[in-house]
């Protein structure tokens, strides 16, 4: 589904991502972990077209998509959520998701129809499945942090992605919110047959749902494999897990 080959990015002489390669097979749930500053978010930004890599390739479904603009990647089935919550704060919850449907459905250049009724059922259906149906007409910026994260997931799902990249989906959440939100993500991924790749610092979350873990340290992959293998890897224990255990 997604292949990353030897991806590198240099910021002012600092090697933020130093030749990273990994695969995300179709239908799998993969995680990228690593201490702060390991280059996780930069790596994500390289994959999703926000940054242009200095070296390497990104291949999506057999097609080289290195350096494509985010809006083009969206059309190819790559969805993304952000570490900072990233929604349309002064639109309602309904309007947020509806806008994503409009864009995805290619209706954005329609200057004549009234917007209110378009994609109504789809929007309400999606809000139902992410648990925001009863808040549809609230202004999105007034939702709780957890609510906004849920909404962001909704924005990504409206685009019917084949692969979804989540950058710290539970950042800033309480323990209870984290649990709910992980269950939600897992359920949605299974229901829709999504391929999932996420970064996360909460180890419990990572080991509970990831099938494959890639460990990043100082911009390099130091280990990759099933959760058990990664957990046993001495290098990982030293640089990463060791900090906590």
């Amino acid at each position: 589904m997604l292949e990353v080959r030897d991806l590198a990015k240099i910021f002012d002489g600092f090697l933020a991502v130093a030749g990273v390669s990994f695969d995300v097979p179709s239908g799998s749930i993969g995680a990228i972990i690593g201490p702060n500053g390991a280059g996780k978010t930069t790596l994500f930004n390289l994959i999703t077209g926000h940054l242009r890599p200095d070296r390497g390739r990104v291949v999506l479904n057999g097609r080289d998509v290195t350096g494509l603009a985010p809006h083009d990647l969206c059309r190819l089935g790559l969805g993304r959520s952000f570490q900072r919550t990233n929604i349309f704060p002064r639109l309602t919850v309904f309007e947020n998701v509806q806008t994503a449907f409009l864009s995805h459905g290619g209706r954005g250049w329609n200057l004549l129809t009234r917007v209110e009724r378009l994609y109504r059922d789809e929007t309400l259906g999606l809000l139902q499945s992410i648990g925001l149906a009863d808040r549809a007409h609230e202004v999105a910026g007034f939702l709780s942090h957890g609510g906004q994260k849920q909404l962001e997931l909704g924005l990504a799902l409206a685009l019917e992605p084949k692969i979804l990249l989540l950058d710290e989906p539970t950042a800033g959440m309480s323990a209870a919110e984290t649990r709910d939100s992980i269950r939600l993500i897992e359920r949605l991924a299974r229901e829709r047959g999504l391929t999932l790749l996420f970064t996360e610092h909460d180890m419990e979350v990572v080991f509970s749902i990831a099938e494959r873990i890639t460990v990043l340290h100082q911009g390099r992959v130091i280990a990759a494999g099933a959760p058990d293998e990664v957990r046993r890897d001495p290098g990982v224990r030293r640089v990463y897990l060791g900090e906590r255990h």
Partner: protein
Amino acid sequence: MIARVPWGLLVFVAALFVPAVGSRYHTFVAGDVVIWALFATSLNLLVGYTGLVSFGHAAYFGVGAYATGILMKKLGAPFLLAWPAAGALAGACALVFGFFCVRLTRIYFAMLTLAFAQIVWAICFKWNEVTGGEQGMPEIPYPDFGWVERWGARVPLLGGWRTSEYYYFVTLVLVAASLFALHRIVGSPFGRILTSIRENAERAEFIGVNVRRYELAAFVLAGAFAGLAGGLFGIFNRGVFPDFAYWTKSSEVLIMTLLGGMGSFYGPSIGALVLILLNQQIVSYTEYWPLVLGTVLVVLLFGFPGGIAGAVGALAGRLFRRLRSA
């Protein structure tokens, strides 16, 4: 409840009666307000809906005014051709300038719009053969209303007005039609996408929106409608002059938009009305009009960031809730 009243229609009908009820002066002021309302609303498509602050919107107003003026005065083209041409030409200019402007953001975007507007002004000011240079182009003819006179003899109320009053009616109808079109545009899926860009361009990009292309489209539409306003204004003003495209005009229309409230569709029209009336009134009392305007703006920006429309809306909402709870 308040939102269901067809305010636009009511104001339109009321405005139709101005020549019958008021003096020539009243009709003149009303015509001025109506044209500036369209100009300010076209700017609000950028500022209020897309989140792009243009400091050079007068360029397109000026291009429209010169297009209509040259076509009607020098080439003897009919108004029905010259007016749409103003929109088309201003839109074309906006396409060329906008192509560069939307590649920049925020203050750089604003500065580039200003730079292009000053280029337009300089061309109008210097190109004597075509634009009349510094002297401008006085005596733009009115559209031909002979046919209305002939018909008017048979239909009551239609005949017997002055040419300037006929022109006022034409202006009113054309501005109303343009505002209706703009209203449709901001309420369409396209308008929603523009709003999403204003709210969060990064996120818009990642729901698949080609942000630059939409910004350019908004820029062209705003320019075209400004051009239509300019086309009407040149004839209304009985002449076209380089200062139509000068930066002071750009700031004037921006002030109207802020004053009226860029958060609502009719805000800029209200801003045009208030600013023009204030100007007329205060100038007769004091020569310090800019001082008064400055004070009004400071109070407004700090006290009522939503402009007049925002303040009235909040007040109406509060009254309505109080009435309901009482």
